[in-house]
């Protein structure tokens, strides 16, 4: 499928979405300037506890956000060609390996004949530190190669599996994480954080200040509490004032700024804007008939996909994990008692909440019920073992509760594999044959 054919015609309505987009560009330019001036710069996988870097004021970029930018800029075909030329397979780990592929691009920081930068946003500045967690077999290898290409120091954080898994994690995680996790698992995660801090202090010469971490953690609590209010507001409003097209970008991008005053204020402004729309009776899709849930990563290269079912069917994608994860999985109260332990209780669970049955399936069901979902479209990512998450159990849990599920394979980043027409037809068929027939 030629990328041009699938070009997204996405309609965004929120000022908050535009605001975070503009902020990210300004922030990225400032970051590039800091790196140019010789500061250390960390490139982090999404599951690395970035709060430590925020507290130490070490500039960082998150791998998955950057992959989304590269995908949205339609760089993937070029990048995977470069991987192939270097002897790597071009059909693996697209989400995680985009930046590695980009590191092979000699034009990443070059300016084209039209005076515009050839790399996305002028290209990724050279990191001095690259950090991932060992949450899948491939990630450490990709990050090590990426670090080598940039001349950066590579650091890996371990990952452990839970022995206990209370189904209602989303009800107890904010305050009672000691009940949620095995104690020794939390102990080990705290030790990991201490080791990371030691590494960063040595590498950067910056001091870690626990008081600063408490401040960062409290700002995050403030930000995520606004997401909770926003999620709850959308869930209880019919027709919904906004769709995932509005919320995914607004939340996902701001999430990578978490721990800043900007991000907390942005989350508040997002809520206030949506609340005003709801109060005014504004509907994202005035003829809303069916409320759809999107399970999976965002289709970054074709965001308009989510809106193709609105006019024809009144079917609106109103739920994605991006807002709901913010609402349910980030808040950790009484941080002051032991900020490192509170942070440990946040970062070790993220993979489990999303990718481990029964934690993911039980949460998806609870969310489907809260949001009065009529149908679930579930994208199982291609070529990613990390995102293999018990799709059978997720589907069974939802369908046993009477909620129809469409499951399909796709790649969230690689536009080469995306056929907008056939994907649209698939969802249309699902809506017509299962959602509209009221399986629920």
């Amino acid at each position, binding site marked *: 499928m030629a990328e041009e054919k699938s070009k997204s015609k996405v309609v965004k309505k929120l000022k908050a979405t535009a605001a975070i987009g503009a902020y990210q560009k300004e922030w990225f330019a400032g970051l590039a300037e800091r790196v140019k001036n010789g500061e250390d710069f960390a490139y982090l996988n999404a599951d690395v506890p970035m709060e430590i870097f925020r507290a130490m004021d070490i500039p960082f970029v998150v791998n998955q956000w950057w992959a989304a930018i590269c995908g949205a800029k339609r760089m993937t075909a070029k990048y995977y060609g470069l991987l192939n030329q270097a002897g*790597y397979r071009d059909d693996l780990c697209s989400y995680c390996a985009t930046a590695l592929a980009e590191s092979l691009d000699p034009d990443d920081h070059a300016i084209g004949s039209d005076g515009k930068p050839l790399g996305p946003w002028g290209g990724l500045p050279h990191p001095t530190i690259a950090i991932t967690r060992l949450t899948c077999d491939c990630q450490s*290898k990709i990050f090590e190669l990426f670090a080598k290409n940039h001349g950066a120091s590579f650091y890996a954080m371990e990952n452990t599996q839970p022995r206990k898994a209370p189904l209602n994690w989303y009800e107890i995680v904010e305050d009672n994480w000691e009940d949620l996790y095995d104690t020794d698992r939390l102990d080990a995660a705290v030790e990991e954080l201490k080791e990371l801090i030691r590494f960063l202090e040595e590498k950067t010469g910056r001091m870690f200040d626990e008081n600063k971490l408490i401040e960062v953690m409290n700002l995050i609590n403030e930000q995520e509490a606004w997401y909770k209010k926003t999620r709850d507001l959308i869930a209880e409003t019919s027709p919904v004032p906004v769709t995932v097209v509005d919320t995914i970008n607004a939340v996902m991008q701001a999430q990578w700024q978490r721990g800043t005053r900007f991000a907390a204020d942005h989350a508040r402004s997002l809520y206030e804007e949506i609340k005003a729309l709801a109060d005014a009776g504004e509907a994202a899709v005035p003829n809303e008939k069916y409320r759809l849930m999107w399970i999976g990563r965002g289709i970054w290269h074709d965001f308009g996909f989510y809106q193709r079912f609105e006019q024809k069917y009144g079917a609106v994608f109103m739920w994605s994990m991006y807002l709901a994860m913010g609402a349910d999985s980030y808040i950790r109260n009484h941080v002051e008692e032991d900020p490192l332990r509170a942070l440990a209780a946040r970062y070790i669970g993220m993979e489990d909440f999303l990718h481990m049955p029964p934690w993911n399936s039980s949460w998806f069901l609870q969310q489907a019920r809260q949001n009065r979902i009529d149908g679930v479209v579930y994208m199982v990512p291609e070529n990613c073992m990390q995102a293999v998450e018990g799709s*059978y*159990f997720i589907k069974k849990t939802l369908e046993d509760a009477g909620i129809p599920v469409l499951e399909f394979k796709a790649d969230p980043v690689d536009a080469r594999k995306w056929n907008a027409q056939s994907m649209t037809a698939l969802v249309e068929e699902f809506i017509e044959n299962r959602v509209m027939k009221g399986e629920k």
Partner: protein
Amino acid sequence: MVLRECAEKSAAFQKLKNAYTHREEAAKAAKAAGKKVVGTLGCDVPEELILAAGMQPYPIYAVPGGPMDMADKYLEYAFDPMVRAQFERIVDGSLNDFCDAVVVSNSTDVLIRIYLYLKELKRVETDVNFPPVYFIDWLFTRRRMHQERNRLTISLFKEEMEKLAGRVITDEEIDAAAVVCNRTRELLRKIDAFRTAREMKLTGTEMLVIIGGGFYMDREAYNKVLEELLEELPAWPAVTGKRLFYTGSVQTDTGLYARVEAAGAVIVGEDHDWGSRYFERDYDREMPPVRALVDRYMLREFSSKKAFVSQRVEALDRETDAAGAEGVLFYFHIYEEAASWDYPSQKESLEGRGIDTLHFAKMHWPQTQEESDAFSAGLKTLIEGKEA
């Protein structure tokens, strides 16, 4: 399985071949004799602990070409075919009449998923009947704190095995099991020296049978057979062929090796756990038991799944040197992806040292006809190219 006349005529080898071929016999005999049998999945389950508890380990292997109804129902397409087949055997009830438990180690990410799925199946689909499942959550990064964490993990696993056995496992019992396992490793290293010697007297195919046969025998009986075989080996005729090192997907039968060796090569070493990685590094009896177990399993040569690229490059260089390899065959099943990220760096290092490489990725198991043809053609080039 293509075996030489010397192997076919050897009584010792035939005992190994029998165990390798009839893999349930020893486990069922142990069960009939009142022993508990523990199925293992993943290469990092400490067999010393299972043996010390008076139980019989039984590596769960994949059967090619069988029905995959349960795997197709419960697993996503991204599980590699061998793991799919292993999962099928667990959940289709094949193990129920002789296995008392299944222990999964997190030796690859896919096995973590298998464990989580098995656990969830137990919870939500109670009509799917299979033995209780245990899990070992190793950390593979070799820092002090991870060694410490591993000691806790193995202590917890020991407690679980004690519950399963219905009794305490004493230090003396672990030491006695370690003596047996160390003796096995020592004998296998001595035997393997006949494969890696300048004048090779063993083929890779034969070595697979010698190693794998022991998985399905009583361990003390196995050591006796290895001792007998060791006596015979000096008289076995030499084999010739291009010396290849094999890296990649585990080979739990002799099919692939036999094809390679029939084409004119000899597989002089490998880095999978049904091959020479199995007998690396002893249990250090000077250490307390849990520490010794962590030392043995955590500090073996890096596996292709749980190591960084640089570690894998160095590991393969060391292994090919030790085996005197002239070429390396990289072979990966479809959806067994991690080592694909190592390959370009490993190739560069090997070829810089004058070692030829041949690479196959995304291979089905068993191979498709098209893959089989490409494999044969590639092998011909690798083997004959050097000679030309």
